[in-house]
């Protein structure tokens, strides 16, 4: 989004292709941001609106790039527009169809990372841009089985007559001078570390799930509760799927130390009498204001214990986190009502496919490879194709924004030079 805005502000036409029904990415899922504790959606939403409203940006959401031929100055990009089964020109985003869907509340919400449920027709979140409904073709019974009552409930509910089951996949051809890849990241699947019992114990959750829990716009309206109960002992575990060769993730995910510190702070803020412990190896509070924030969080009574957790099991209703406190040199068993796993950042599952498609290379960690690690951090080996954000490697928000603007700079240069030639 940032890259699009910069290029569009410089006077060039931008096609923004997003695979999900809404722009916003992972940041839309966050509650507050570290270290300033700004509300994430409060600072993101205006940006999303800017993108939607910008005369030079054409937003193509729920679509995927399927090919890119040509070179700098004359790329021909093929985009596959997936059918939403909703006519976006008619849809007002009123949500009546969402309320009406027979599967309402039965499908785990991607946006809330499973903390809440949605229906087969859904709007990912209230601030979504574009604010249009989308029908999940894999779950909608009318699409999968061909029947849904006499008339599909959504169709019946929609006063704008926007539901359109006849929609087909469409191919869009774009001609562009330069391409920015900002496909983001996936989060490490905590199931790959079975010793933590994620997926087994409902009160072992990931950092992102915590964000949805503590978010005021989330399913619990910002109350940190599990089954209606406030946890009194909360343990945060760092480096879950980071710095861990045993699961093939050698690198540091860069953001988890701080998002954990922030979450620990939020627990302390919302449940002052909660005991909050963070288990860590190294606290990487490297950015501007980070160390200060880490100091503050410790000052608020969050207990940092050096030693990463090895295992989680259950004793009665409580979780037991087994770890060594390496500074005591002793094994400890910590009781917990809630364990939050700081799952790391991994390359997107389809990163390799996209790399092949765009003829980019990936570095050993699986992220897209920049042209030179020091001096050309946003360029790729393919001229005219640039990288922004976490698709190149883990990044926090300001670094992601800076890199996006940097990529925009490269694109503006390319486009302006092209202008002079023609």
């Amino acid at each position, binding site marked *: 989004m940032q890259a699009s805005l910069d290029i569009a502000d410089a006077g060039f036409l931008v096609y923004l292709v997003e695979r999900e029904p809404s722009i916003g990415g992972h940041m839309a899922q966050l509650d507050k941001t570290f270290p300033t504790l700004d509300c994430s959606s409060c600072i993101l939403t205006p940006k999303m609106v800017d993108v939607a409203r910008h005369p030079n940006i054409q937003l193509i959401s729920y679509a995927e790039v399927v090919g890119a031929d040509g070179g700098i100055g004359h790329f021909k990009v093929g985009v596959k527009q997936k059918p939403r089964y909703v006519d976006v020109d008619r849809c007002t985003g009123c949500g009546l169809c969402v309320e009406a869907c027979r599967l309402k509340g039965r499908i785990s919400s991607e946006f809330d990372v499973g903390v809440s449920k949605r229906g087969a027709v859904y709007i990912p979140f209230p601030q979504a841009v574009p604010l249009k409904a989308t029908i999940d073709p894999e779950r909608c019974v009318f699409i999968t089985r061909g029947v849904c009552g006499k008339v599909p409930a959504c169709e019946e509910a929609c006063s704008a007559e926007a539901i359109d089951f006849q929609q087909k996949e469409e191919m869009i051809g774009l001609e562009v001078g330069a391409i920015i890849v900002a496909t983001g990241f996936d989060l490490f699947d905590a199931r790959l570390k079975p010793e933590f019992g994620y997926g087994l114990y409902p009160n072992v959750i990931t950092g992102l799930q915590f964000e949805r829990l503590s978010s005021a716009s989330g399913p619990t309206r910002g109350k940190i509760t599990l089954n209606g109960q406030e946890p009194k002992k909360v343990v945060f575990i760092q480096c879950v799927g980071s710095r861990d060769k*045993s699961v093939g993730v050698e690198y540091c995910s860069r953001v988890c130390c701080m998002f954990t510190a922030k979450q620990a702070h939020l627990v302390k803020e919302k449940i002052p009498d909660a005991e909050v412990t963070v288990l860590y190896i190294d606290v990487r509070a490297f950015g501007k204001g980070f160390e200060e924030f880490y100091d503050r969080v410790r000052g608020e009574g969050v207990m940092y214990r*050096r030693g990463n957790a090895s*295992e989680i099991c259950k004793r009665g209703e409580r979780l037991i986190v087994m*770890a*060594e406190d390496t500074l005591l*040199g002793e094994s400890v068993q910590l009781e917990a009502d809630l364990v939050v796993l700081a799952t790391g950042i991994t390359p997107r599952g389809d990163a390799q496919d996209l790399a092949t498609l765009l003829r980019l290379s990936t570095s050993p960690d699986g992220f897209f490879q920049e042209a030179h690690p020091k001096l050309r951090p946003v360029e790729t080996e393919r001229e005219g194709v640039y990288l922004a954000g976490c698709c190149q490697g883990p990044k926090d928000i300001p670094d992601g924004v800076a890199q996006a603007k940097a990529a925009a700079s490269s694109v503006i240069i390319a486009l302006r030079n092209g202008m002079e030639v023609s």
Partner: protein
Amino acid sequence: MEGQNLAQAYRLFECIQCGRCTGGCPMSLKTRFNIRRLIYEALVDEDMDLQSKEVLWDCSTCATCTLRCPKGLDPTDMVIGMRSILVDGGRIPPTIRDALKSLAIRGNPLTMAREERADWAEGLGVKEISEGAEVLYFVGCSPSYDPRVQKVAKAMVQAFKKAEVEFGILGNEEVCCGSEARRMGETGLFEMLREMNLETLERYPVELVVTTSPHCYNAFQNEYQGLNLKVQHYTQFVAGLINEGRLPLSKEVRRIVTYQDPCFLGKQNKIFEEPRKILRSIPGLELRELDRSRERSLCCEGGGGRMWAEGTNPEERLAHTRVQEAMDLGAEVLATACPFCLLTLEDAAKTVAGEGGIQVMDIMELVVEAL
């Protein structure tokens, strides 16, 4: 210079001291055995004195530390290396010395005669492998000699016969796989036993070796370089038989059973499904899972020579904890698939539950009940 050499040999410099090894170590809670600190001492103390480190004998080589290490190090191997230094220096507990001596002389750690190894099979009509068979059943030391575990071997035979498996045993030619010798620090002895077994095995044209013990299985699978045979633990083999319909389990066994994953089978070789599959195939049997199971299973303390060394805290036993957990679950039977687990857990069951309390059984014994 011991610290330096160890650091070099086991790549200890790569350790980031995160503590995952010790945190997961089942012994770290009941003894002063702290593997993370051992690594660190080896790194920072060039003149590290291992001789006084009795705690080294606490390790059951369950390898949780190795599995949990985020940097791909093998602390279990380091403990073994440290033990071998102790063994070389002669500072070892007498019980260990006896076991090792017996292994060297008699090919088993139980101080039993080599010639009595196949006595258990008398009258069962078991073929010697020399008579020719597709499958070699490698019995192992305790199933051969220990009266309790012999029942497992016998059950195995019964099942094999039922499924009409063409199998044979090595008889008195069988010697210990050496797994425990290696883990007690006697690398030389392990290599000798390995050579002996390899030589024996080479002589017979079998396609598959099936073991009773996960320890034997692990040794063959992972530590017998040059063994070109397919090796299976019996749970894999028997699960296969059931799958193919060769072993019909028809009798109901109306019992509530829980299952202890042996470290050498589960954690170390990721064989989690097959034992459960067998148990689930037994009609009437209700399988309840322990909280700590599979990758998070709790060690019974039987491995790594611990059958012959008490360790520094003999009072608290993990096997007791385990039996208690099984009882809390309401299980009538605590099943396992490892001779060491069987022995340690049964011992514990007697103390914790008394006679007539929870029963400890090998999976094979349950299988036979269902035949």
